[in-house]
């Protein structure tokens, strides 16, 4: 029942926030995170076209052997990605809370340019309270 990481991807596919929490996933360089986030954005776009029953959002949960990715797509195209262990079922509610924190600490911050990397202390502090400090 562990949260491994949180990514926030803007609507163009660029990674604007990335944070690791519990140990458990491989440590990657920041460049690799950028590439992987862009790839995930592409996959999300592809899966939204593949639906056999008409219009649909993209992939929401991707499960692997040791972890799973939950993707929350907002109405404006921003994606919140949570990497958790397989038995964690609270990913959706956690992502809703992260969205609330994002709306407060990032959108209302005049020193934050939209769609740019998030460098906001308020956001970091609130994510800490919600998910624990990063390793």
């Amino acid at each position, binding site marked *: 029942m562990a949260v491994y990481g949180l990514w926030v991807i803007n609507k163009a596919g660029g990674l604007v926030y990335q944070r690791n929490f519990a140990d458990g996933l491989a440590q990657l360089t920041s460049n690799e995170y950028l590439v992987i986030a862009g790839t995930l954005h592409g996959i999300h776009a592809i899966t939204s076209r593949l639906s056999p029953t008409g219009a649909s959002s993209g992939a929401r949960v991707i499960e692997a052997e040791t972890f799973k990715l939950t993707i929350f797509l907002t109405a404006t195209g921003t994606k919140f990605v949570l990497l958790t262990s397989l038995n964690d079922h609270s990913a959706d509610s956690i992502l809703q809370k992260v969205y609330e924190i994002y709306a407060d*600490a990032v*959108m*209302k*911050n*005049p*020193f*934050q340019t939209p769609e740019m990397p998030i460098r906001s202390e*308020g956001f970091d502090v609130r994510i800490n309270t919600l998910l624990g400090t990063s390793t």
Partner: protein
Amino acid sequence: MSYSQPHTRFSLVSNSSLSSADHLSSSNASTSTTRFSLQSAPSINTTLGAQSQPKALPRNAIYDRNLNKTRTSEVSASAFAFLFSEMIQYTQKRVSGIEDLERRLNTLGYRIGTRYLELMSWRTEGASKAPKREIRFLPALMMIHTQLWRAVFGKPADAIERSVENDDEYMLIDNDPQITRHISIPRDMNSLSCSALTAGIVEAVLDGLGFPARVTAHSVPTDAFPARTTILVKLQKEVLEREDALK
């Protein structure tokens, strides 16, 4: 006809969407081809004239509301946060440094403060037979500490202090200023405090009461209250001299 034309434009602009949609739909029903041409003005007038007889006055604008009834109405904190964020971004594009930014926010707060002083005085003393106002500095500062803060922020400020080194400096302390709750100052602008807006409000109220001063806002975080802000009031010399003379 020439008189009612400006009236038509005015009422279509000031009415909320409900009634103007009614007017447009009724005029559309009657004259479908002349919807966009100026010749439709007479037909709009006739339909408007027929409909506006029952409600001759224009709809209630915000300026028509009773000042006493809106005393306890509240504004959405999120809406204000977005407005304030845009005010700061707008100012930031036009200034050359942190002091300039604080000074401009101070000016914006000043404009709010002058109006707020009038509104507060009218609301508290407007109906009384013998209206009074503060003429000594300490009661005026207490009034700002409780009444102004309660009127603007919903709760009194947290502390008043007097500086020990200079006797012309007083401080109002707020442990968690509401207007800057969602603002994170970047590392390279560490000395900026967006509560300069609040400082401007206080400066205007003091000016209006006859205590000219220079008011600035400083962030003094503590462990318990990381957002603690001090509004520093530096009185001008003539105020101190007057206070001494009145003692």
